[in-house]
């Protein structure tokens, strides 16, 4: 019960946190690009866009930061045995994240917001790039920490507890390299989708085509390569995980027995941990082999042999993750990504024919497309984190052993309820504010006579 509550709480707060993080990273990069365009070309449209999307960015940053605070505290509050055991390894990238990235990000965000009329345009442009860089850097450290839980490296066991011996190993961990690339690309996809959706909505409602046509195009130019690369990186990540966490990949295909070559089922009926014979519909031959091993005839070990192997190695226990979450997490992620690719290509094609701003159908679809990256991100994280279960650190510590001994069930219930209510309220407010500011009309362009006057700061 306590394990379930603590796990549920961590999943809830992390999924919520990761709704805001990719928007922050993605929009920071895109806003920086817009401001760079303004700096280079001095067209007022880009300045208006920078301010417009900058406002959306800060609404998001606020809640991204505070939900991140919860994440940091939770390791100690709910998972104290875990923190005690691996803090000397896992805590290091977290502390580095604060020192290297959080200071940078938040200090320069303040400088950017309030420094419009106090810094030279060049220095001011640098501040937004440092915000974008800081947010990406923070993702690097937290992904290094997370990847260590998926595939521990750079440590030795001393009296049953892991001790860090090589900090570089954490940052050259293949799981880290590929999953970090994937997170950055996913953030760009999410940010670009938000920008595309807002621009499309504005264009549908008669927004200035000279302005929002530009941002829609920029969003598409970022979105399509980012999602394509994300899929390629995801494929490679699958191969790496098949190597280090074979159970995760076997569960993602609901593959109970070893196969060679292996097919990939598009949909199945039934399945789950108690149904080893689900009805698979439309199996594509060889595809799983390709995805999991990069070889046409690759071999994928099934969950039953893996279970026997783990039980022999780690002692009796059930080492199979939730197969339902794995199977559908994988498919939701992949199928929705394909939809994003198709819509993105459609948009680029329209853009080439100069019809982007007037195609009502596309603008409607592009507005609603914004939902998909959030579902993709959530599905991806469930796949990654649920797939590691029952381990909290693969092969080193079981999740149920990582709990805080001194925290009672009642205390866990209280914190779960507090966070659900609070996140529900704040999420709603954030959404309302985002919608309201996304639907605002752009302030009129300043008259040409004022062009040389400094731009006012974005005060509270």
């Amino acid at each position: 019960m306590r394990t379930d509550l603590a796990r549920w709480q961590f999943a809830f707060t992390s999924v919520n946190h990761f709704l805001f993080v990719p928007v922050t990273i993605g929009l920071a990069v895109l806003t920086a690009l817009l401001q760079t365009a303004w700096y280079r070309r001095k067209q007022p449209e880009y300045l208006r866009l920078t301010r417009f999307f900058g406002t959306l960015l800060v609404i998001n940053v606020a809640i991204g930061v505070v939900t991140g605070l919860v994440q940091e505290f939770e390791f100690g509050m709910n998972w104290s045995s875990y923190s005690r055991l691996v803090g000397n390894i896992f805590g290091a990238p977290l502390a580095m994240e604060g020192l290297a990235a959080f200071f940078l990000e938040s200090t320069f965000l303040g400088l950017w917001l309030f420094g419009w009329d106090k810094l030279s345009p060049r220095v001011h442009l640098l501040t937004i790039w440092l915000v974008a860089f800081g947010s990406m850097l923070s993702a690097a450290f937290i992904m290094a920490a997370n990847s260590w839980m998926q595939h521990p490296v750079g440590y030795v066991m001393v009296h049953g507890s892991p001790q860090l011996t090589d900090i570089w190993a954490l940052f050259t961990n293949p799981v880290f390299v590929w999953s970090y690339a994937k997170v950055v690309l996913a953030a760009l996809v999410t940010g670009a989708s938000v920008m595309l959706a807002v621009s499309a909505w504005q264009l549908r409602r008669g927004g200035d085509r000279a302005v929002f046509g530009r941002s829609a195009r920029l969003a598409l130019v970022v979105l399509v390569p980012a999602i394509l690369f994300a899929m390629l990186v995801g494929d490679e990540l699958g191969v790496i995980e098949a190597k280090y966490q074979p159970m995760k990949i076997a569960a993602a295909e609901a593959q109970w027995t070893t196969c060679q070559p292996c097919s990939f089922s598009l949909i199945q009926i039934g399945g789950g941990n108690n149904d080893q014979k689900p009805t698979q519909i439309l199996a594509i031959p060889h595809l799983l082999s390709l995805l999991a091993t990069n070889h046409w005839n690759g071999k994928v070990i099934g969950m039953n042999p893996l279970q026997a192997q783990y039980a022999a190695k780690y002692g009796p226990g059930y080492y199979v993750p939730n197969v339902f979450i794995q199977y559908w997490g994988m498919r939701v992620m992949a199928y929705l990504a394909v939809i994003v690719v198709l819509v993105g290509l459609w948009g680029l094609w329209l853009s080439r024919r100069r019809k982007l701003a007037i195609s009502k159908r596309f603008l409607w679809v592009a507005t609603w497309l914004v939902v998909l990256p959030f579902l993709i991100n959530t599905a991806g994280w469930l796949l990654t984190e649920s797939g590691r279960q029952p381990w909290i650190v693969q092969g080193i510590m079981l999740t149920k052993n990582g709990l805080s001994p001194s925290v009672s069930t009642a205390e866990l219930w209280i914190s779960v309820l507090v966070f659900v209510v609070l996140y529900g309220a704040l999420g709603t407010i954030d959404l309302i504010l985002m919608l309201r500011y996304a639907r605002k009309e752009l302030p009129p362009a300043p008259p040409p006579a004022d062009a040389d006057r400094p731009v006012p700061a974005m005060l509270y």
Partner: protein
Amino acid sequence: MAFVPLWFILITILWTGFFVLEGFDLGVGMLHGVVGRDEAGRRAVINTIGPLWDGNEVWLIVAGAAIFAAFPGWYATWFSGFYLAFVLLLVALIFRGVSFEYRGKSPTRRWRRTWSRLLASASLVVPLLIGIALGDLLHGTPIGANQEYTGNFGNLFQPYAILTGVMLVAICVVHGATFIAMKTTGVVRDRAWRAARRAAPVTVLLVLAFVAWTHVTAGGGAFLNPVELLACITIIAAAFLVRDRRDGWAFTATTVTIAVCIVTLFVDLYPRVMVSSTNPAYSLTVHNTASPPYTLKVMTVVALVLLPFVLGYQAWTYYVFRRRISDQQFRPAARRAATAVPVAQAAPAPGARPAAQRHGWVLPRGWRRPRGPRT
């Protein structure tokens, strides 16, 4: 093995940095309603810390993460043992963080009043709870032989811990008020001085009481150590400087006082990090909670390389935003010409909806039917 004490010092520096910097942000948050009085004044007060508070709060995050990396055992016992207190602290930190950003995002008075109240109360709860949590470290809580907390939520509210919390709240108020006085002009500055002067005597008493009790708790003997003595001197000096309205010096004095109070607590704590009231032998110390030397060595290199940069660009931020702020900047130009108009009857801000709709802030604009011609 010099890394272990070094990391205790670094963590002391991080907590001190947090309270010195975020201390005035918290004070400003608590006071912005009183000192600001009307909307223009409140905005002037909040904007004194607008570009700074977010970077200052990171000191807390880094202090927490540094304990995690350098003293995992301390982090684990502290955060899990004081569970509900940390839940409350998180709630307060969340409200404070978003209220800065959200407060100005809707023109209705009710919206702003709600966020203002949340900002003020959260700014009070944060130093109170952190103070209680820090005070408990030194005064001792039930901790068993296996380093696990064995007490309950009520055990945290012991008199010494509460005094530490209240003292920190009080000193944040004075620190924040002198900061506002240093960063504003006109009526806002005047009101900040009056707030500082009103809070100063109580704060002096609280700091003296805290120093005395800390000295006794730590079993320090008949004489105060230099750090404790310094705290007594600077807080009294601060009170006089506040009376004389010497803004730069008063702020320096409150800065030193806060720093010295935190340092006192950590100095008296060392080498323990969490005192066990069950049995002194069960106390957590820097040695029985520290990470292995390799981790500490890596983190030392990282911290010593990065901290100077952080201090550099944060100092530069303070330089960029060195100018004083006036509430007049936040009054619409038309009204600035005719200052006779009382602010309470101020015209609605540009973009405000008619009074009949003003309370409908729950629904965003254009929620039902977006306006504007379709294309």
